[in-house]
Each structure stands twice: as C-alpha cells, then as structure tokens.
C-alpha cells in the first residue's frame, strides 16, 4: 500500500475511484486544505495554552518560544490565588442562576407559542419576542443602569441573573417553540383522552419528549451567559464581577500578566470545550434560532 493510498484510506475510508494519479493529487489537495483549516483554527488556541505555561519573563522574549522553555503551572496557581477564583465562582453562580430562571420562564412560554399562539398574542408577538434578542445590548443597558442604580442594586448576583433574562428569555421562548412544534399534538391529545389534564399532558408527555431540545437550549443559554461581557462591564464592580470583565483589565496598563490572563482564558474555555464535544451538530440548530435543523 502506497503512502498516499494509506492516507486516503485512513482519512476517507473506501472510495469508489481506483487509485490513480488524479486520485493521488486529489488526496494531497484535500489533505493539505484540511490541514490549513485545522492549523488556522487551532494555532491561536495553542498559543494561549503555550503562553499559560510560561513564567512571566518568557512571555516577552524575542524570538518567542513556541514551546515553553521553562514549563510551569505557576500562572494557574497565581491567577487562582489572586483575582481569578472569585471571578470564576461569580461567573458560575451568575451563569447557572441566569440559565435556570430563563428556562423556567421561557420553556412554558415556548410551549404556549408552539401550541396555541392565537391565545397569547399570535405569531407576530412571537416574532416580536425574538426581535428583542437583536437589540444591541447597550440600548437596554443605559436605562436599566439608571433604574438599578436608583434602587441600589448594582453589583449583585440577583441583578445579573435578572438582566441576563433580557436576551435569554427571547432565545429560550423561540428555540423551545421550535422544539415543541416538532412534537405532534396528537400524542398530547391521546394523553388527554386517557384522562390527563392539559397541564399533566405537558409535564408527563411533552416535556419528556422534548428533553433533547431542552438540553440544547440550556447549554446554549448557559454559554451565552458565561461569555457575556457588556452587561457585566457596566453592572459589576467587585462582588458579582464575572471573568470576562477582568480579562481586559489584566492586560491594560504597563504590568501585563500575559501568562496569568492566558491561564484564566484556558480555564474559562474548558467548559466550552466539553460542551462543544457533547453537542456537536445540535448546536447548529440552536445557533440559527431553530431555522436550520441539522
């Protein structure tokens, strides 16, 4: 078996073309293009991981080191014993709380708009809810800041969880509407014939059937809350400060802690990587607001 043939076999499994010069060129072309895509995507991520394991002076040497010369985990220790652990804990609390509330409020509404939009303002109100998600965040931030400041509720967990409802609820309503629409109404009707009330049919029949959709929506909402920056920048100071806010402050000014900020970024990315591995194609539907069903 030639190298080209072997590579092709490993990469693409059996192909119908017989091994030929043309096939060989094609394999080389495809392999190099795939490699270019992978390197471009991954190099920036690699560089961050690389930086996060260097001692501070080594982050500013020329030429830069493509593998840490002195491998150290002290950037992780330093950031976690410094500002890092409290912002990560805050981020976990705010993002989990925000997601839970958004799901509690949004899932039933999504169901209502899937089953009987006519009773709750019609399809146009559903579209209007979705359009709220397209506001630039700064637009609601300005009046909300003024209001929350008046009642002295800046920089608290409940405030952040509440604020994140402004963009999470529209997303949950819209996505869950799309997922509930996939479940034939006939299964609920059958349950109602068996004596369930509509509320029981919802809890015992529809909700279990839609659980993959709930998982997708929950994870997506969580990611958006975990990554949120503009609201956190305006509404948090200390007590509720989340990790995206301290990243720019760590690289501002003269004392630039490149290795520590890289370590914090790596830590913040870990859950994202896990979720990406778990969700794969289901994310596409979520990210297109249910329009593209993978």
């Amino acid at each position, binding site marked *: 078996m030639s190298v080209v043939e072997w590579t092709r076999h490993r990469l693409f499994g059996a192909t119908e073309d017989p091994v030929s010069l043309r096939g060989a060129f094609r394999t080389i072309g*495809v392999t190099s293009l795939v490699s270019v895509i992978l390197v471009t995507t991954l190099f*920036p991520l690699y560089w961050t991981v690389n930086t996060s394991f260097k001692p501070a002076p080594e982050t500013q040497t020329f030429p830069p080191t493509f593998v840490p010369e002195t491998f150290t985990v002290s950037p992780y220790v330093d950031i976690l014993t410094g500002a890092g652990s409290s912002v990560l804990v805050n981020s976990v609390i705010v993002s989990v709380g925000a997601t839970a509330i958004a799901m509690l409020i949004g899932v*039933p509404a999504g169901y209502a708009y899937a089953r009987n939009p006519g009773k709750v303002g019609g399809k146009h109100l559903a579209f209007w809810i979705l359009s709220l998600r*397209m506001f630039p965040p700064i*637009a*609601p931030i300005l009046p909300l800041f003024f209001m929350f400041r008046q009642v002295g509720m800046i920089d608290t967990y409940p405030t952040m969880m509440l604020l994140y409802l402004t963009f999470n609820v529209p997303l949950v309503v819209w996505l869950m509407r799309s997922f509930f629409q996939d479940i034939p109404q006939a299964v609920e009707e059958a349950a109602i014939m068996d004596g369930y009330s509509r509320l029981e049919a919802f809890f015992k029949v529809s909700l279990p059937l839609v659980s993959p959709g709930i998982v997708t929506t929950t994870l997506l909402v969580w990611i958006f809350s975990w990554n949120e*920056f503009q609201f956190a920048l305006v509404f948090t100071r200390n007590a509720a400060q989340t990790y*995206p806010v301290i*990243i720019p402050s760590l690289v501002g000014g003269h004392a630039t802690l490149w290795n520590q900020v890289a370590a914090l970024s790596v830590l913040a990315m870990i859950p994202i990587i896990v979720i990406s591995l778990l969700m794969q194609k289901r994310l596409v539907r979520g990210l297109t607001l249910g329009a593209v069903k993978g």
Partner: protein
Amino acid sequence: MASSSDDTQAHRSTGLSSYVRNEHLEYWFAIPALLILLALVIFPMLWSLWTSFTDLNLSVATRNGAFVGLANYADLLTSERFWTTIGNTAYYVGFGVAIEFTLGFAIALFMANYTRGRVTTVLFTLLLLPMMMAPIVAGLIWRLLFQESFGPINYLLGAVGVGQPPWLSSTAMSLNSVLIADIWQWTPFMILILYTGRLSISEDLYEAARIDGADRWFTFRHVTLPQMKGVIAIAILLRAMDAFKFFDKMFVMTGGGPGTSSELATYYNYLLGFDSFSMGKATAMSWLLLLFAVVLANVFLSVLERGEGGDRVV
C-alpha cells in the same frame, strides 16, 4: 384501561384549577415571560426614548432631565465622532460578514464534497471551539498573537522578511486587526451552518443534474445556490446582527484606538453613557442604533416567516 378511567374521574373537577389547567393554559404559560420582557426591556426602552429628548447628565447636577427636544439627535448627527464610529461599524460589519461568508461557503462546500466520516467529525468539532468561546477571550488571544515586538505573527513575518506590521498601534491597521480576529472566530459559524444546509439538499437533485450532463458550475448555479437561499440569508443576517451588537473584541484589543480609528458605534454609545455620563445623548444614540437593528431584524424575520410556511427554512 381501568386506571385511566379512574384518572378521568379524578380530573373532572371543576373550578379554578381545571380552568387554569385546560382552557387558559397558554395564557398562564406565556404571562411570566411577557411580564419579564415588559419590565426589563419595553418599560426601560420607553424611559430611554423619553430621556433621549432631555439633557439628563448623571455627573452634572444642573442637567437633571429638562426637555430639550431633538437637540441630542442634532448634536449626534452633526458630530464627526458619531459618523466616524458609524463608518467603522459599517466597515467592520460589511467586510467582516462578506469575508466570513465567502470563506465559510467555500469551505462548507469543500467539506460537503471532499471530506467524509471521521475527518468531517473532527473538523466539525474543532470548528465549534472558536465560536463557542467568549468574544473577549478571542480578542485577548489575538492581542497575544499580534504583539508587535514579541508576538508569534510578527516573528514569523520577520523571519520570512515581510517586516513587523504595527497591527494594533497604527490607525490604518487597528480596525483591520480586530476584523481578522472576528473572521477567525466567526468563519466557523458560516462553515457549520452552510455545511448543514448543503447536506440537507436532496441527493436526487444532484443525480438528476448528473444525468442531464450538467457541469459543476451549472449544478452549483442551478441546484446548490437556489436550494440554499434560505440558509444563506439566515447565516448572513444572524452574523451581521451579532457583529453590529458586540464591541467585546475591540474593547480588549484596541480599546477603540489609536484615537478613534477602531472605535465601533456601540462602544461610542457606551462611552457617552458611562464615560461622560450624558444619558440624554447616549439614549439618543441607542435609538439611532436601534433603528438600524430593527431594519435588519425585520429582514431576518421575514426570511424566517417565509420558511415557516413550509416546515423549515432549509
């Protein structure tokens, strides 16, 4: 079936609870969401609209919200900085989305035609990573890469003799550097959506084209492109709205500088509110930005609504 008829008996109750459970279920299900959105978005935005006609400034005690008519709007529309930041945003959204779409479409079609099995799965998974991470982290990563004196990009460019461009410190390049980071983060979004859209086209259509002896270009032009119209519109509009909304990457990479060379409109709006505390002018600017967002959103919704006639857009 005995138990189910017992259930029937049990639930023939009358009164409020069955009323809530049955006839008005949708109503009770939708009310919390609608109330929350009313309280957290609609009411504040009405306050914001009113404020945009006043001189409210949180740092000047005498400017406590007197009505000034359209003065804030007039100030903005005649200010050079306003138009600079609008121009920057137009450039950022326009070029960003155009490049991301072109690259993404090409790679999506490449993947659909040439990669199989495990390679596709690996590509798919790895491409998810950039777009799932916080834009602020993506911006930070590119700030590391673009370091002028010791970053890896300038080292490699220097090694091949291109020189060391001042990526973030030159007015000519700063916005383009932020754009590069945006393209890195969001081209995968285009790839994945367009790839999914391409795969949902029935193979029969390609088979028919093959039988008719259509060449590749003809097949692309008359099968792929028309079949993917809906997905393409969705991908472009979603991306345009997001590129317009967020200033996260710009914030961490350049802070809008040098000068205002990379300052985006949403960031200028932020500064008006939280740097100069002039709420009147800031709310006026957000209403101007909202007008643009509403236009984009309406186009998007009409595409989506057309798709709802059938059961899906793709």
